[in-house]
């Protein structure tokens, strides 16, 4: 009897165990394993894609084209564009920009090869033309700009500070001078015995881009007042004897003149009251004497700040 019971119990345990194991294994293989496989597959796809994107980014950074543009003739309507592929990759050109309009392209450029294209433009006088080539990988390559003037097409030089000839500098006033404008009153009414002085300059922007004169601009006297410095100011008023600080930066359009005013720096903080502080007894006035100043001009051109110094000469009068 006991043996039979134990045997039956063993059998029952065996059935439940087997069923449990079957269900567990089945559950494992039908749910958990597929889930793991799906997740693993997703991870693999993600890794592959990321690797591919990294490769594409690498290719994008190695893409290198040199774009050269020239006109077919001096007054031609046709521009010749030469694109040199200087990288080891095959580059597909998708767009060619001329200033703010583009034409769709579909040119494939093999490694180390050159592609030549002609583009028709209707040039406007005194207009600058910027040509860009856009690639399928999202790069843009810019050619040196062309300028169409009265002499036809010319290469536009890249912005840079030149040694001379960029700005025409001229005296406007230095106290009482023959250059004095009738319309101005502040310079007119400064007494001859005054111990303060303002200097006016006219500058011309010879660039083809607008330039912005920055507040750091100053003038240093060379003759007759050694090491006297004047800051650029907005304007001076008289008889209040005040100087308004230069806060609104002047934008000078291409070919345009701008009048800039300099006044003495003060040791009285921000009060901008002048007279007793330097420069004092500025002028031992000698009729017809020549003065020299050095203008240090800070300006912004195409988003970059440049500094240029130039020496100017002027005649002052004591009358």
């Amino acid at each position, binding site marked *: 009897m006991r043996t039979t019971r134990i045997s039956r119990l063993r059998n029952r345990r065996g059935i439940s165990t087997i069923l449990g194991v079957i269900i567990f294994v089945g*559950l494992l293989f039908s749910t958990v394993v597929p889930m793991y496989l799906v997740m693993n597959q997703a991870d693999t796809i993600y890794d592959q894609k*990321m690797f591919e994107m990294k490769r594409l980014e690498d290719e994008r950074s190695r893409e290198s084209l040199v774009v050269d543009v020239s006109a077919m003739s001096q007054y031609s309507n046709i521009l010749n564009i030469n694109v040199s592929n200087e990288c080891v990759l095959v580059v597909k050109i998708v767009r060619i920009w001329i200033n703010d309009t583009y034409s769709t392209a579909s040119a494939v450029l093999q490694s180390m090869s050159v592609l030549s294209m002609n583009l028709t433009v209707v040039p406007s006088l005194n207009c600058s033309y910027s040509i860009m080539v856009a690639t399928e990988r999202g790069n843009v390559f810019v050619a040196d700009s062309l300028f169409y003037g009265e002499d036809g097409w010319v290469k536009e030089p890249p912005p840079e500070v030149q040694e001379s000839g960029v700005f025409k500098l001229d005296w406007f006033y230095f106290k009482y001078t023959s250059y004095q404008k009738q319309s101005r009153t502040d310079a007119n009414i400064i007494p001859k015995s005054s111990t303060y002085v303002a200097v006016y300059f006219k500058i011309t922007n010879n660039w083809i881009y607008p330039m912005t004169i920055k507040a750091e601009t100053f003038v240093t006297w060379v003759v007759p007042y050694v090491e006297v410095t004047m800051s650029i100011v907005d304007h001076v008023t008289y008889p209040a004897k005040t100087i308004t600080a230069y806060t609104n930066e002047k*934008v000078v359009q291409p070919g345009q003149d701008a009048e800039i005013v300099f006044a003495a720096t003060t040791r009285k903080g921000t009060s901008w009251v002048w007279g007793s502080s330097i420069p004092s007894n500025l002028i031992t006035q000698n009729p017809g004497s020549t003065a020299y100043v050095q203008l240090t001009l800070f300006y912004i051109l195409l988003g970059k700040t440049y500094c240029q110094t130039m020496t100017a000469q002027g005649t002052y009068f004591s009358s």
Partner: protein
Amino acid sequence: MEGLELPSKIKRNRRGISPVISSIILAATVITIGGTVWSFTQSATTVIAEDYVDGVMSLMNEGTERFVIEHVSYYTPNNTLQVWIYNYGDNDITVDVYVNVIGGFFESKMENNVSSKAIIKVPISITIASGSEVAIKAASRRGNNAYYTYLKT
């Protein structure tokens, strides 16, 4: 136990039926519970796997999104800044464009759809003075950004 033993006929009958029934009951119980657990686990793992795959795909789409501000120009007669956005990735994108004139105005144009390998022009009405510097940001809905600095000449 010996004194309580039933007549041998009944005992034999019970002995015959109960192992079968108990086995059936046991098996049924195990199958039912096991099936329930199986079903629950399967749907749970399916949901978990789908969520995971969706998450990975979303991350992948974010990681493979590629776009650039290719060109910017300003059309003075109607004070419109034109921003060209080129999508050189494989996914279609939706971008919001923000324009900030340094020391001046701020403007934006939302929800601009760009198909894969396509370029679109986004016109934004804003007044920009000559010489102003303009910071432009194109932000995709997946969280990627492209920047451009434009100088109004």
